[in-house]
């Protein structure tokens, strides 16, 4: 074997590189291209975005996590395009957001909560009003490849009486998924729904405990309980037969679902007193036992702290026909927006959207 002298090897490599059009800095051209493309894109976006020329500011929005898809993928881009304001969002359970705002751990301009009872504790320090504008409802999402799929389809299209769904969910080996009632409103809502169904359909008194697999309905210690983020993924991967869901989630994720009557789905604001008959006693980590009761799943919006132009613009946009249409497409029920609380504290631009 003939050894190639180092110098000639280097020369060979260099000449090969030149011959193939690559010099000693082969990364230069692609990097320059990427930088140029980035600058060009920045130039294009600054010329097309009204935010750089017309208005400045960013609406910081804290929202219930059931609004994640709608806010991040639908409302935020449309809001920015329509108004020129920027948008930053943070999704979490309404209760956790309320605690974060009260503890000044976050300082959003706008708060969208499921249920006004997550806003009233912030009054009057952070806000004096809120506006309900949309409602959601509980459904039972199901796995179309489950061995019970034909039953689910029959319940969904009404060919079988819905009462049987609750008996089916009691079946030993039935894989049901739900979220933690101690930290997630959906986890509690599902239990309220089961309790209401037990009353509504005159089912045996142990129906709820049989479905949940425990008499301690507020417990976190159940193999049925998943983190909210993984529940849908587990259902979609075919590892569950059915799971709790808000109708909006089911629509967004294209999950097949079974609609429930208004008497039990927590979606009708006029049935608030009926829903309140369902209760769950929970024991959140590091907190004493508390008993919570069912309430209509209404989305409320308010401005936190001193209203900023971007915050006002976001609320105004959300309550506008264009904003509400997005909610309707997402499966929400629209509610005529009316102020709850001190209406004189509502910015005039928002009031004008209410027609007053």
């Amino acid at each position: 074997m003939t050894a190639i002298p180092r110098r000639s090897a280097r020369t060979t490599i260099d000449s090969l590189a030149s011959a193939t059009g690559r010099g000693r800095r082969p990364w230069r051209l692609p990097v320059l291209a990427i930088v140029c493309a980035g600058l060009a894109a920045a130039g294009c976006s600054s010329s097309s975005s009204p935010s750089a020329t017309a208005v400045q500011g960013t609406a910081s929005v804290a929202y219930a996590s059931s609004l994640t898809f709608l806010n991040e993928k639908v409302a935020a881009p449309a809001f920015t395009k329509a108004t020129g304001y920027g948008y930053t969002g943070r999704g979490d359970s309404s209760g956790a957001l309320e605690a974060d705002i009260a503890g000044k751990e976050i300082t959003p301009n706008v708060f969208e909560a499921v249920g006004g009872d997550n806003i009233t504790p912030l009054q009057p320090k952070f806000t004096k009003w809120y506006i309900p504008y949309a409602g959601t409802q509980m459904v039972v999402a199901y796995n179309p490849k489950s061995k019970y799929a034909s039953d689910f389809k029959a319940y969904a299209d009404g060919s079988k009486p819905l009462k049987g769904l609750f008996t089916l969910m009691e079946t030993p080996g039935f894989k049901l998924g739900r979220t933690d009632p101690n930290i997630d409103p959906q986890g509690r809502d599902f239990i309220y729904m089961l309790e209401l169904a037990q009353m509504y359909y005159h089912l045996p008194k142990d129906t709820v405990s049989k479905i949940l697999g425990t008499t301690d309905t507020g417990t976190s210690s159940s193999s049925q309980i998943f983190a909210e983020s993984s529940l849908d993924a587990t259902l979609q991967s075919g590892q569950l037969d059915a799971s709790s869901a808000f109708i909006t989630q089911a629509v967004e994720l294209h999950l097949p679902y079974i609609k429930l009557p208004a008497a039990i789905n927590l979606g009708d604001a006029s049935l608030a007193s009926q829903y309140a008959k369902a209760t769950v006693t929970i024991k959140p980590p590091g907190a004493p036992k508390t008993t919570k009761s069912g309430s209509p799943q209404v989305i409320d919006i308010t401005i936190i702290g001193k209203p900023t132009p971007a915050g006002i613009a976001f609320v105004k946009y959300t309550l506008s026909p264009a904003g509400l249409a997005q909610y309707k497409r997402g499966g929400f029920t629209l509610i005529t927006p009316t102020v709850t609380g001190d209406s004189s504290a509502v910015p005039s631009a928002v009031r004008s959207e209410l027609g007053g």
Partner: protein
Amino acid sequence: MSWAASPPAHVAGSALRRTVRSASGVASLAGAAVIWVALLGPVITLLAHLSWPQVSAALSVPGALDPLAVSVESGAITLGVLLVLGTPLAWTLARGSLPFPRFWEAGVLCSLLLPPLVIGLLLIFMVGPYTPIGELLGHVHLSATNTFLALVIAEVYESAPYYVLGAQAAFAAVEPAIEEQAALLGDRPSRVARRVSLPLAAPGLAMALAVAWARAMGAFGAVVIIAYHPFGIPLQIWTTLQETGLPTALPFALVLLVVALPLPLAAYIWSARARGRRRG
């Protein structure tokens, strides 16, 4: 002008070099201090935001320390699994005795590179109740979803690559010539491994195991997907944060630190001393 009064050129040059060296020494020290403080910043912040009454109140709630027991038990089992299954893999990787060694190494690296959350999502497809593995487990009344077994599986996946790669480096650092000499003196391979390779690799193995322990204790991404229940400490922190906010969650972060840190520190000190003795 008196030339006699001026220092010779080479003396001036060495003084300049000393000054430059001391200046660069000070700069390195300052740089190291900045990085060290920055790395410790979150820990310092944690300690600054905690008061003893706050810690005591949070930890005295009945059942508050149950997740600690869950984390320690699952972490201990995870280390056992890694020792039994990960050590032979690390050994064979270090010795290059597997066919297509790069293929095996790439496999370990893949599991290191996958975000824990993704590992959790993929584990659903692998060990979920309606998968072949899940159904097999179901026959013996076990489940790899939302159970202690699921927690151990998630922790093994999150910590295994750290142990295997660390152990591989520890075995690779053992001079093959020493093992060959032991073999030439008549020791069987098992005796060479027991009397030569393992003791020489032990400090590195201890460090790898300690890092794996810390990873298992802090495992969250895969755990939150397939093992929501029973709670270990990371999930305890997360659920407490969700429900009652930061002040109640922070004491559990301290618990995690207190439990996860001593083993890596002890392993580091022992490993450093062992290396020092060998050099000495």
